[in-house]
């Protein structure tokens, strides 16, 4: 893996969110004694991730598995409970907001819902001007205007529409505007959190093409979060599969789709409805996703896995690299049982 240059690296990252609002809620009577019990949602548990320069890394997983939390931790929007984030070799998770500023213009984020992520009281012009002015205070008015027009052009929104408000645009157009906002400061790294799931099929294709063009023209690196595996197969160069706050498999897209190794990946891939498939035949998983408040011991997937044995119940599997470059966290794969 060393031949690729790493842009972003997450090292052993944990993130917990406390459930209780205050001291009073934490107090419980137990065996006649007042005890204080703190509970938290363990959203991310020891995640290791390397994002290579120029790649489109897709993060997939079901709702609640920690995809979005991971994205926000990497972007520095929330602080990790433990662990380190590096950007281009520099540690960024412990920087204060002024020191982080330098990185902020290199890293941008696109959110899922373009109805919520654009300020309804700002015109498109203002929305796009703000980040440019903020990150380039030395720019003259004319230079700012030039950048705004250029970025609007590049996402297919007529610069004449700059004085309009978000409500005057359709969902697909709004998502173009939020992509324009991310591109406005000329970033090198973009985290897109479900950027097309709020859009209709025909519009999804338009926005995906736009993201792909931006990547080709500007040599961008993407983390692309989605639950839609058909999109992953199309857009991603590598895929990271997440389950209950950990990555269970990271592989090249083609390798993952042709030979998924982790039992969860296998079940997930078999569940995608295929256009030309007349009957569903998916691998059924036992039970349901456990709560991230009380994580299962050992491998978090063991309770639902048909290949689980004694060892899976006690020992947490580590991500290990296989011969084809895929990394899998599974005892069964490691032992050659699968």
């Amino acid at each position, binding site marked *: 893996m060393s031949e690729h240059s790493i842009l972003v690296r997450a090292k052993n990252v944990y993130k917990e969110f406390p459930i209780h609002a205050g001291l009073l809620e934490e107090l419980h009577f137990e065996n006649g004694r007042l005890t204080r019990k703190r509970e938290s949602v363990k959203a991310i548990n020891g995640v290791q991730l390397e994002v290579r320069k120029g790649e489109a890394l897709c993060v997939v997983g*079901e*709702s609640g598995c920690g995809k979005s939390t991971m994205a926000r931790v990497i972007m520095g929007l929330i602080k990790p409970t433990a662990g380190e984030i590096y950007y281009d070799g520099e540690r960024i998770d412990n920087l204060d907001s002024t020191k982080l500023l330098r990185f902020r213009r290199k890293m941008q984020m696109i959110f899922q819902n373009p109805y919520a992520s654009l300020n309804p009281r700002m015109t498109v012009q203002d929305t796009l001007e703000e980040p440019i002015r903020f990150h380039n205070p030395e720019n003259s008015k004319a230079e700012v205007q030039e950048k705004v027009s250029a970025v609007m052009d590049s996402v297919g929104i007529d610069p004449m529409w700059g004085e309009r408000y978000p409500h005057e645009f*359709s969902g*697909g*157009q709004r998502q173009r505007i939020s992509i324009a906002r991310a591109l406005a400061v000329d970033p090198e790294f973009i985290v897109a959190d479900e950027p097309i799931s709020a859009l*209709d*099929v*025909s*519009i*999804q*294709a*338009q926005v*995906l*093409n736009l993201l*792909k063009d931006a990547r080709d023209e500007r040599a961008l690196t993407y983390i692309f979060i989605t*639950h839609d*595996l*058909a*999109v992953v*197969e*199309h*857009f991603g160069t590598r895929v990271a599969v997440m389950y209950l706050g950990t990555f269970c498999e990271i592989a090249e*897209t*083609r390798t993952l789709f042709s030979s998924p190794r982790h039992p969860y990946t296998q*079940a*997930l891939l*078999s*569940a*995608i*409805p*295929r*256009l*030309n*498939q*007349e*009957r*569903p035949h*998916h691998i*059924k*998983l036992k039970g*349901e*996703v456990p709560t991230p408040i009380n994580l299962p011991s050992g491998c978090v997937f063991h309770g639902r896995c048909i290949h689980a044995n004694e060892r899976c119940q006690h020992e947490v599997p580590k991500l290990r690299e296989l011969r084809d470059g895929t990394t899998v966290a599974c005892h069964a794969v490691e032992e050659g049982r699968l």
Partner: protein
Amino acid sequence: MPLLEVKNLEVKFAMRRGDLTALRDVSFSIDKGERLGIVGESGAGKSVVAYSILNLISKPGYISGGQILFQGKDLSKLSPEEMRAIRGDGISMIFQDPMMTLNPVLTIGTQMVEALHAHREISDQRARAIAIEKLVQVHIPSAATRFAQYPHELSGGMRQRIVIATALLTDPLLIIADEPTTALDVTIQAEIIELLLELCESSDVGLILITHDLSVVGQVTQRVLVMYAGRIVEEGLTHGIIRNPRHPYTQGLIGALPQQTVPGGRLNQIRGVMPSLANTPSGCAFHPRCPHVTDICESVMPEYSIFDRSRVACHWVKDQLGDVGEQKINETPAP
């Protein structure tokens, strides 16, 4: 006689500036035990069709023309009382978001028993027995325990199963499911799809599945209607349409799916956006986005070209027909 026959249905919304037409000339039918899909993007009028069948269109919307014949009876002419007797008894509906459909402050059991009492004069005990039987039928583990729980204690997939069990309580002849898997994860979606198929095949209930997802329609239904801007633009056997779509919109919709392109390639996109009701284009509503548009498309709404078991509303398709002759169009055989 088909189970449900919709004839020339027209739905309008009365606005201050005049009426907006939400559905025009919608005709289709479904037989007992048949599974019919309705696909289209948001704003196509899919849900309006479902709501009009159950007479759930609320003001300012109204049914301005056509008939909805359920077992020969015109539903649009029934009194509110008569309609209530059919809703949830002869025809049940499953909505998209199970968290919105279930009442959060009542237990699953209370809600199911209440639904049953609305249609049947039976004892509480009998109602409870039926409810638990239906919960078992939709594969809810430890049904008797779940019966006493509240919706928030269950996962999303489990809640949708409860909603399906509730829809089955009165052994309806027709179930209308409006995007039943859209709010769910793929693994759960796969389970719900399998459940719907199993129920339809074992009990001969008809299913109208409304969705934007063509792959879901492909797995569940036998026949499909494609809607655009309030009109059916294409109808046919599901696998025929997926393999060989005729209408340019259907072709665009299927072509835009990432599976249809080599990984990493540019997706085929349909230009433009779905028009709003207030400015539905003249002639064929799809003409501003259509790659095959000609002068006639801008002024004349296309009639249906009828094939053996399918129909398409498109001037371009009709012209092609004229060239090759109708007999040469191969009809996809029934599965």
